[in-house]
């Protein structure tokens, strides 16, 4: 498979970036998207060019480290992470545009790597439960209704990759926020800090310069873990309740 790759190159956060075009031959359809970039980097290394920086870690779709804007779609055309996207989703002669996540809250570090610390700061502002250390309580010590356990589990699959922010025309992180709020809010352990959590996380979200949600829905269709839009409604409901409670 022969490809034309148009890739964003940017030396540092403050440097001006630009799109560069590369030709790559001998790509197998069994390669993952990141393996294809590895092959390109070997080619660049061989010709003494700076290899392209991109994030990756587990390469099995569970860590949330990788994430590229591929042909205008976060994580590319399939519902999965960039590492689990395979070249069989493309065909010989394709031109592929690769860009980093674009959001001012996610500054570009180098080439395709962005700094997603803003998501960690949101977690630090309330996306946790306070638990005493010591021996773990029995797993069934706190009963959880099946429906709630299922919903909490479904949204706990959020890996914090940032695709929702990247896909959102408003640059909002509401789907990420909603996933965390719903995950902890459905469980008994999340109740004591529930109302402070939503205020803290939303304030941090706005402080870091993410946009406001207008319910367009691009986030949910870009999410590799298929987090549904109703978590944003849950976020709004919790926020409304917290405000009524005067938090």
């Amino acid at each position: 498979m022969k490809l034309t790759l148009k890739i964003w190159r940017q030396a540092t956060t403050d440097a001006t970036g630009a799109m560069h075009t590369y030709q790559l031959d001998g790509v197998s359809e069994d390669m993952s998207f990141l393996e294809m970039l590895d092959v390109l980097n070997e080619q660049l290394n061989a010709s003494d060019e700076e290899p392209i920086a991109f994030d990756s870690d587990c390469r099995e779709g569970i860590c949330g480290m990788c994430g590229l804007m591929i042909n205008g779609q976060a994580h590319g055309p399939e519902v999965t992470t960039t590492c689990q996207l395979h070249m069989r989703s493309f065909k010989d002669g394709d031109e592929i545009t690769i860009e980093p996540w674009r959001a001012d809250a996610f500054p570009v570090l180098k080439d395709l790597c962005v700094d997603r610390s803003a998501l960690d700061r949101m977690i630090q502002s309330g996306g946790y439960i306070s638990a005493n250390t010591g021996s773990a309580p029995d797993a069934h010590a706190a009963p959880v209704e099946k429906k709630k356990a299922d919903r909490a589990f479904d949204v706990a699959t959020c890996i914090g990759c940032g695709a929702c922010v990247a896909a959102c025309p408003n640059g909002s992180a509401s789907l990420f926020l909603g996933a965390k709020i719903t995950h902890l809010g459905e469980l008994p352990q999340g109740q004591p800090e529930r109302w402070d959590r939503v205020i803290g996380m939303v304030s941090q979200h706005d402080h870091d310069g993410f946009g406001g949600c207008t319910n367009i829905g691009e986030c949910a269709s870009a999410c590799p873990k298929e987090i549904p839009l109703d978590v944003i409604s849950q976020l709004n409901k919790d926020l409304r309740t917290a405000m009524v409670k005067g938090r």
Partner: protein
Amino acid sequence: MAVSGLLFIAFTLVHMYGNLKAFSGQEKFNDYAHHLREFGEPILPYEGFLWITRVGLLVALVAHVTSAVILARRASRARTTKYQYKKNKHSALSSRTMRWGGAALLLFIIWHLVNFSFGKVNPQTGETGAAAGDPYTLMVDTFDVWWMTVIYLVAMLALGFHLHHGTWSATQTLGYTNTATSRQRAKQAGWLLAIVIAGGFSLVPLSVMFGIIE
């Protein structure tokens, strides 16, 4: 944004219903326009109800536009470097045209008020104020001008788009769509209100154009 939007939905629904009185003839339609001024008497003064509605709508409009401007500014600051190439996958066109559609509706509403309310401009005779004719005559004369009908129909298309996304978006913002089923219902309500309200409004200019109302 959501609360003021819901107020507009209620208003447009009632306004659309009132407009359909055009089908009962000149006398009934003019009576309806007059009754709006007497509504609530003797507890309210003459035109009291009308002014309460006007002030309420104006407050809602200010809230709606202010929220829209804040959201638009936040969005433009959130992504100052644009994508070279961005595809939208599953979002409705109506959801992505709320800002431009809203601005178009605002311009239309200004003209609509000049046309029928504060100015009373008859585009056919060129007369303004009381000389423009009674409400029914003014309406028929306006929609007998083909390009006026076109402007109104385009505005109703924009209104339909705005209602389609706005209805579901308001329920989502207020936190009432916490399950897949309620989300589906809110989206269906968006379709229903868009078709009923924008469609109902469009019936009158279309009927004038085709000579059903004259």
